[in-house]
C-alpha cells in the first residue's frame, strides 16, 4: 500500500475507533504497535515492563486526543511523539542516574570508534547508557531525528542535544571497546 493510502486507511480506522469500534482499534494497534514498542523499549533501556506500560499509556493518551488530531502528519509520527512524552515521564520518575560519567571540563576518554559489532552487543551498550544520553542517541542515530526535533520532543535546548549526543557516543565507544577487549565496563 502506498504511503497516502496507508495514511488514509489509518484515518478511516481512527474515525471508526472514535465511534467505539473495537475491531478498528485492534487493526490500528497491530499496524503501529511493533514500531512503537521497539522505540520505547530502546528508549527505556530494554526494560520490558516499562516499555509495556509506556505502550499502553501511549494508546490511552492517543485515543483520548484522537478527535483533536488534525492529520497534518502521519498517524505513526504523531503516535511516536506521544510515546516520547510518555517515555520521558517514565524516565523522570525513575531514580535519577548521573547523566555524565565524567566531568565535561575534562578531555573525553580516548574511545576508538567501534568497527564490527554484534547487534546484541550494540543494543546492550545503548541500554546501559544513562537515560538522557540514551534518549538523544536513539532518536538521532537510530531514528534519524534532527537536533531541533529532539529538542522539541525532549524539551531540551538544541545545544544540549548535540552535547548529549557527543558524550553518548563517547560512552558507547568506550563500553564497546572494553567489551571487545574483554574488560568489564
Amino acid at each position, binding site marked *: 500500500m502506498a504511503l497516502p493510502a496507508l495514511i488514509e486507511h489509518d484515518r478511516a480506522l481512527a474515525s471508526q475507533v472514535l465511534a467505539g469500534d*473495537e475491531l478498528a*482499534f485492534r487493526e490500528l494497534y497491530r499496524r503501529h504497535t511493533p514500531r512503537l514498542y521497539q522505540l520505547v523499549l530502546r528508549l527505556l533501556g530494554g526494560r*520490558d515492563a516499562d516499555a*509495556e506500560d509506556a505502550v499502553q499509556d501511549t494508546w490511552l493518551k492517543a485515543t483520548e486526543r484522537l478527535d483533536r488530531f488534525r492529520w497534518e502528519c502521519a498517524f505513526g509520527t504523531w503516535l511516536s511523539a506521544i510515546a516520547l512524552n510518555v517515555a520521558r515521564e517514565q524516565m523522570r520518575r525513575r531514580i535519577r542516574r548521573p547523566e555524565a560519567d565524567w566531568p565535561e571540563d575534562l578531555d573525553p576518554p580516548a574511545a576508538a570508534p567501534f568497527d564490527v559489532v554484534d*547487534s546484541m552487543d550494540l543494543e546492550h551498550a545503548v541500554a546501559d547508557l544513562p537515560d538522557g544520553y540514551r534518549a538523544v542517541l536513539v532518536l538521532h542515530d537510530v531514528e534519524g531525528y534532527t537536533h531541533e526535533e529532539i529538542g522539541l520532543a525532549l524539551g531540551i535546548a538544541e545545544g544540549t542535544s548535540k552535547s548529549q549526543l557527543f558524550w553518548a557516543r563517547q560512552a558507547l565507544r568506550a563500553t564497546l571497546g572494553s567489551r571487545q577487549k574483554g574488560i568489564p565496563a
Partner: protein
Amino acid sequence: MTDPKDLTPAERRAFETLPREAEPPKGLEDRTVALLQARGVLAVPLRPLAAPTRRWHPAWLVGALAASLALFASGIAVGQLLGARSATIAAAVGLGSSLAERTQQVQRTGSEYVAALTALLQETDTSDAASRERATEAALGALGAAAQEVSRLAPSDPLAAAVLRGLTERRRASQAPPPTRTVVWY
C-alpha cells in the same frame, strides 16, 4: 581523520542494522482494549444469550450464583435508597444508619448471601436432577428478584434486562408442552 563527533561508516551501518520493530508482549493488546472499554472509549460487545435448555450445567449454576450476588447486592442498595423497606431487607440490613454504613452492610450481607449459595451448591448432589433443579430454582429466584430491583432503578440497564429476558425464556421453555412424537405405523 574522522571527526570524533561524527559516526564512522561502520558505526552508521551498525545502527542501521538494529531492528525497527519488535513483537509486543502477548496479552498487551487485550489489556489495552479492556482498559479502553472500561473507560468507555470502545464499546463493550453484547454477547447473545444462550438458548434456554432444560438441563443446567453445574458451571452455569456457579455463574448464576455470582451474577445473583451482584444483582442481589444492587437490589438491596436500590431498595434502601428508594425506601423500599421489606421485612427481609430491613432485618438483613438494618435501618437508621448512614449511607456509608448501609453500603458496608450491603457488602456484608452480600458476602453472607453468596456464602449461603456456595454452601447450597456444595450440598447439592449435582448428579441428582431433582435436587439440582431445586438448588437452581432457589438461586434463580433470588437472581430474578434482584434483576427486577435493578431494572426499577435503571430500566434500560442491559444486564438486568438480559437476565430478566433469559429467566422469562427459561420459564416459557419449562412450561412448554413436550414435543409431539409422530409415529409412523407400517
